């Protein structure tokens, strides 16, 4: 069965510093991987995806993620964090033709 893990409940970073939010996955076959962000009292917003192709994918708001097949990871990164990036981030995986499954989420807190 497919699964996704986000090992950190919370990530704290100072504004202007680089940030990384970690995600590892387990699927049979090729994974489809996604990152979403959720602000308080809102639905989820799509940030970026890896389907195939380049291992480094770029998404909205300056975020990017690196797919690493050997480590089964898909970490979210940003070179310079903003206070407005503070939110709840979810990694998600789908095994072709099945349902989208989410990690438990990581709260990102960016301090000024």
């Amino acid at each position, binding site marked *: 069965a497919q699964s996704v893990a986000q090992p950190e409940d919370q990530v704290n970073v100072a504004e202007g510093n680089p940030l990384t939010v970690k995600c590892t996955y387990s699927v049979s076959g090729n994974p489809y991987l996604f990152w979403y962000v959720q602000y308080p009292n809102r639905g*989820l917003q799509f940030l970026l*995806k890896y*389907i195939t192709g380049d291992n480094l994918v770029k998404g909205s708001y300056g975020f990017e993620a690196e797919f690493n097949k050997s480590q089964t990871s898909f970490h979210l990164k940003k070179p310079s964090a903003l206070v407005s990036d503070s939110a*709840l981030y979810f990694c998600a995986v*789908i095994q*072709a033709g099945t*349902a*989208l499954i*989410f990690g438990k989420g990581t709260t990102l807190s960016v301090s000024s």
Partner: protein
Amino acid sequence: EADIYQTPRYLVIGTGKKITLECSQTMGHDKMYWYQQDPGMELHLIHYSYGVNSTEKGDLSSESTVSRIRTEHFPLTLESARPSHTSQYLCASSEYAGRDTEAFFGQGTRLTVV
């Protein structure tokens, strides 16, 4: 903004009542999902659908039902609401043309059962 709508946004209802949460999308997406999420917590898959007349159960499906009679509409029904059903319910849809794509989410329905 994605064209996926959930109604109502907020609902307070008594224990034992039957309720239906509505979800509609205007994007012609084949796949649709329902998730349950407590505030700030993980999303749990309730039901999903590949298309018209297709429904599949997720991890939390035992106390609810769904139907998919039309592509754009995917309502979720709780036959007998309980306080444990108090949560946020998120609907999502995605295109599937031989390959899965990103899902778009509605704003959610916040349900309180008293």
